[in-house]
């Protein structure tokens, strides 16, 4: 039997049902379903990722995926994590000079010419490069920023990286304080680094004859640095930052795979020796950055001067300009960087046989030579905020071209004339980025 309720009873039930509908949690959960553990994690964290490909003309190539994640606590606190992986392969210059005669070398793992599994010969006129170069690197870093007061914060960070032949750990701390209605920020940071060098084929004895295969055990180096910075809001469109920093490394600072050509009096190759660098290095730098922006354009000009106890003085200038489309959906960012450095005191492209016994420090590594370098780049960015319903979400791609030109003016012996002794470096760099 079915009961037919009266009009008053029906009205009460309708009112009760309406109230139940208005207050029912399931109705809300249908509109905003629980995102779950992964969803909540994705909502709470900001992610940035990049895949970079680096290719040198006839030498090294590298692939580098990077992922970083950061989370703001809303009170000025922040935690960030990052992971980097590098895979390098190709041909790496071994430090020897080109020659009019063929030159024969072994891979770094060899214990003698006779027993070497991999021997490579460099054709006349070519720069000697080890074609067996291969390395992988995994690095993990974390930073935790803790607000101390409404205007000051403290950051504690660390980084660890592992390569086939190199292990490194770094810790860093920083303190920052805002003044003048947060228009001025003064910061101070310090870091300490400890590295272990475990070269393939063990560590060559510095200045030893390349053909003697004299080897030592693992080496280490330590470093410490400090950085003082001031950031100032100048106007509504202009921000400037000045940093001064100093760091010092002590221990094994050689490149264990680099040798130096030993030349006889006439300029003919008499042999090769392993390089040797001083066991300490102190660097000082000043860095100035200016950012100016308008509604659809911004520019970043940075200048750096650096000097070190090895005699290297370097100057760097870089400008980036970001140009937005009227809708701010797209932007392009051309960039140019100019770099110049003077040579380390002990840089020498070759070692005269007559000086072999008296030379304490020598390296022919072009990274310690006098040179200038230019970078030209272009980046394109597409704002994904509307599509993904998330601010600061974008896809980017950038391409850069890097060219290094050596400026070695040492007189060339007759036996080496006609050779391109300092070919420099050309590299192309492509990077895809996605932030969410």
């Amino acid at each position, binding site marked *: 039997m079915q009961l037919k309720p009266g009009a008053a009873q029906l009205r009460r039930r309708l009112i009760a049902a309406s109230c139940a509908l208005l207050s029912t949690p399931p109705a809300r959960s249908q509109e905003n379903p629980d995102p779950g553990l992964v969803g909540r994690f994705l909502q709470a964290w900001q992610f940035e*990722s*990049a895949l970079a490909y680096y290719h040198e003309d006839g030498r090294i190539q590298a692939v*580098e995926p*990077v992922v*970083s994640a950061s989370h703001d606590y809303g009170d000025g606190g922040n935690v960030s994590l990052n992971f*980097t992986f590098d895979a390098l392969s190709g041909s790496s210059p071994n430090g020897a000079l080109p020659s009019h005669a063929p030159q024969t070398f072994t891979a770094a793992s060899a214990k003698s010419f006779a027993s070497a599994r991999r021997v490579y010969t460099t054709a006349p006129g070519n720069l000697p490069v080890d074609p067996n170069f291969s*390395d992988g*690197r995994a690095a993990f870093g974390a930073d935790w920023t803790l607000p101390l007061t409404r205007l000051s914060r403290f950051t504690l960070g660390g*980084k660890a990286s592992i*390569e086939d032949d*190199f292990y*490194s750990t*770094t810790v*860093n701390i920083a303190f920052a304080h805002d*003044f*003048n*209605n947060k*228009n*001025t920020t*003064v910061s101070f*940071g310090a*870091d300490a*680094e400890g*590295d272990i*060098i475990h070269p393939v084929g063990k560590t060559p004895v510095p200045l030893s004859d390349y053909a003697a295969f004299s080897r030592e055990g693992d080496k280490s180096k330590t*470093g410490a*640095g400090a*950085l003082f910075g*001031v950031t*100032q*809001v*100048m106007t*509504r469109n202009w*921000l400037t*930052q000045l940093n001064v*920093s100093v*760091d010092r490394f002590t221990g094994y600072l050689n490149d264990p795979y680099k040798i130096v050509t030993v030349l006889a009096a006439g300029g003919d190759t008499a042999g090769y020796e392993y390089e040797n660098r001083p066991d300490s290095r102190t660097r000082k*730098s000043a*860095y100035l*950055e200016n*950012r100016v*922006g308008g509604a659809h354009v*911004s520019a*970043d000009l*940075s200048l750096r001067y*650096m000097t*070190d106890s090895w005699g290297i003085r370097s100057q*760097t200038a870089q400008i*980036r300009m970001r140009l937005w489309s009227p809708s701010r959906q797209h932007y392009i960012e051309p960039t140019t960087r100019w*770099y110049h*450095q003077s040579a*380390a005191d002990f840089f020498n492209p070759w070692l005269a046989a007559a000086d072999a016994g008296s030379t304490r420090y020598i390296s022919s590594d072009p*990274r310690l030579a006098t040179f200038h*370098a230019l970078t030209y780049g272009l*980046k394109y960015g597409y704002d994904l905020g509307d599509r993904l319903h998330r601010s*600061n979400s974008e896809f980017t791609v*950038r391409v850069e071209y*890097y060219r290094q030109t050596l400026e070695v003016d040492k007189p060339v012996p007759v036996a080496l004339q006609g050779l391109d002794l300092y070919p420099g470096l050309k590299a192309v*760099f492509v990077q895809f*980025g996605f932030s969410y």
Partner: protein
Amino acid sequence: MKRLTILTVLTLGCAALTGCSSLGVKPWQRDILSRSDMRPNGAGLDDAIDEHVYFSKEGSSGGRTFGGGGCGCN
């Protein structure tokens, strides 16, 4: 001489901070400054990757933040 240098730096630093107090903007004028492309070190991974490349190919590094390191590439 060293004491004089420290005194000069401290004096200039205080003068600069005092001078800075007349610069800057009000909180409601930070619309452009709050954009990611206007933040110091705002280039994020781009700067980190660039630093790694230049660290491995040049004799200088750092300045913007702590100077490279953590890599056997130099």
